[in-house]
């Protein structure tokens, strides 16, 4: 490990810093109309904490750890899956600019 060209810590720091710049850059000019869907989409993306929840559930050593980890899996899944679905529903409303005819009177 110690002989690596860049240490793991530095690599993670670099990834962190570069991600900040990408995050800033990517949304810097977005119209107000899309603020809400964008927030909701970003919200769904951090639901990927599900990956972390699965990893800790895998190596849980005690029942307490397992219980907490499984709770995290449930919560993270709600965040991720629900987040993407609700964002998609929001964005459905925007599609079809010229012909706003839609026949999906789903839940009403």
């Amino acid at each position: 490990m110690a002989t690596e060209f860049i240490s793991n810590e530095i690599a993670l720091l670099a990834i962190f810093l570069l991600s900040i710049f990408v995050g800033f850059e990517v949304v810097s000019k977005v119209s107000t109309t899309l603020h809400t869907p964008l927030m909701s989409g970003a919200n769904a993306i951090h639901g990927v904490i599900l990956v972390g929840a699965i990893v800790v559930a895998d190596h849980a050593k005690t029942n307490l750890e397992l219980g907490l980890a499984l709770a995290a899996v449930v919560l993270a899944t709600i965040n991720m899956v629900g987040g993407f679905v609700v964002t998609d529903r929001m964005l459905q409303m925007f599609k079809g600019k010229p012909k706003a005819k839609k026949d999906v009177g789903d839940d009403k």
Partner: protein
Amino acid sequence: MSRNLYDLIGLAAGICFILALKGLSSPKSARRGNLIGAVGATVATVIVFFYTNDGKALNNQTLILAAIAVGTLVGVPAAQKVQMTQMPQLVALFNGVGGGAAALVAIVEYLNLGEKASTAVVVATVFTVTVGCVSFSGSIITFLKLQELMTTRPVVFPFGRQIIALTLIGVLVSGGWVISSGGTTPLLVNGLLSLLFGVLFVLPVGGADVPIVISLLNAFTGLTVAASGYVLQTTLLIVAGTLVGASGTILTKLMAQAMGRSLFGTLFGAFTAKAQVSAGMADARPVKSGSADDVAILLNYAQRVVIVPGFGLAVAQAQHAVRELADLLASKGVEVAYGIHPVAGRMPGHMNVLLAEANVPYEQLVEMEEINPTFPQTDVVLVVGANDVVNPAAKTTPGCPIYGMPILDVALAGNVIFLKRSMRPGFAGIENELLYETKTTLLFGDAKDSLTKVVSALKAL
């Protein structure tokens, strides 16, 4: 699966998230962007099952899959069934559970590592638990506020400032305690104090600022995910969390700008909160209030009508009623357009979603910059449940909370009709001079009821 392959697929998922955010920033590609994000998240989740333990099934795999099934069974129906008006609070709730999940992940890993945890990992753990808990409890409070299960007004209590400051100190001290001496009890104390801080932090925020707080808590959750990624040494979590943290911060700033609020003021409202007194004197000057019939007559003989929908329309679920009225007027040969303020509704862009849901033709939705020059040629402006976005005080009264916020210049039109529930000022708590003008007619009542009455009065004409 080799570590390298796993990391490469993780990298691909990270790129998916970047493309997702990029796509979501433009109307044309927004939906695709969201799908790309969902694909990235799904891939990232699926590969975990194949990477760890050298191809053997994960420990507790059945339980994990069951937990995912439970989460899906809760999340998907909630997302599908929610009324579009209630969507902001659902997003708040999703965000909160995400923060809670991140905090739990860090706690489990901390218990698991025990003595082996390095100081850097413990620091990251404390950060995740603290911010994740704040995000969790804060989001629950924003949910309760938006769902109107509690008051939307700022909640101020005696010694609030001191209590909040003390709690914050407690959070920091307990965090230091975890880092210096380790152990489960300090972390538990830290988590509980953080939960309390989240509640206290959001309580003094007024209804109008809630969207900004949701966006901020969203960015917070992103950062906790990044920190938990460090705890678990998982690059993908660091990338995804940081992306959301950074873009969420920018988005929060943009939102605050669009609403003419100071981000600083919103953030530290908890510390500076005094009950937002209405700047104007809530005096008893005469206003002209009319009946549904008066309004119908005004509308019937107009050439051009502009409808300004606002927060009240969303609350009253009146988007379908307003469309019925617009269609009826159009059939009578009246030119109808909707003037959409960028921050009308609960959140920026929310009004467009609501009206699109009611199948209002996209061409009729006119943005502020385009509609403002047309007001002098407009006979009647119908303001449905909006107040601050048409308040001339934003232009004329330096020092008032909304001063400098761009508004819809409805005062330039021939007549202005306000559909309002009461004379109560808007969320910003500022008296609206426009209500007292002679060209203004007020129709009191629930927006939906009022619109329905106007429609039947119009039909009778």
